[in-house]
């Protein structure tokens, strides 16, 4: 079975500071990796995904993530955050090779302060 651990439930940060949201996964088979963002009272929006190829993945809104197979991690980073980045961020995995269910982590609440 697959599982996802998001190590920080909340991350407070000041505007224009860099941020890293951590995600580790466990799986005995190959997986695809995703980061989703959820703004208050909204659905889930895909930030970026890793399916194969380059381990550094760039997404929307200036976010990027790096897949590290040896450490089973997929940490999300942004060099300079804005107030508008305040949201809940979810890391997710799916077994590769098909259109399989997403298994989500518990989420990290990013709070950007002025």
């Amino acid at each position, binding site marked *: 079975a697959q599982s996802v651990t998001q190590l920080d439930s909340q991350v407070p940060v000041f505007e224009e500071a860099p941020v890293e949201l951590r995600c580790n996964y466990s799986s005995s088979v190959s997986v695809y990796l995703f980061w989703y963002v959820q703004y208050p009272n909204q659905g889930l929006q*895909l930030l970026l*995904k890793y399916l194969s190829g380059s381990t550094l993945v760039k997404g929307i809104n200036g976010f990027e993530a790096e897949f590290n197979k040896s450490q089973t991690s997929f940490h999300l980073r942004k060099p300079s955050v804005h107030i508008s980045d305040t949201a809940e961020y979810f890391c997710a995995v799916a077994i590769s090779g098909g*259109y*399989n*269910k997403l298994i989500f982590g518990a989420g990290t609440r990013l709070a950007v302060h002025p």
Partner: protein
Amino acid sequence: EPEVTQTPSHQVTQMGQEVILRCVPISNHLYFYWYRQILGQKVEFLVSFYNNEISEKSEIFDDQFSVERPDGSNFTLKIRSTKLEDSAMYFCASVTGYNNEQFFGPGTRLTVL
């Protein structure tokens, strides 16, 4: 830009009542999913649907739950006899056959009293 839509945005019901949550996936998508998120908890998979049948379901998806694609556009989740613990945000998602990006709807908040 095409998007997944869900109705209603908020449904309040009495315990034991039947509810139907509706979703309109993106028109050329082939795979459909329901997830739920109990307040303060992680998003959980309920069921996936392809080619007019269930592909996979979770332990949560018991006999009280059913899904249907009654026409070419709608995808519904029915809960036959709601329980208090069914109170959650329910998300519909769909995937095209070309990549593995699941597009999520805005969700339906179900409150069971």
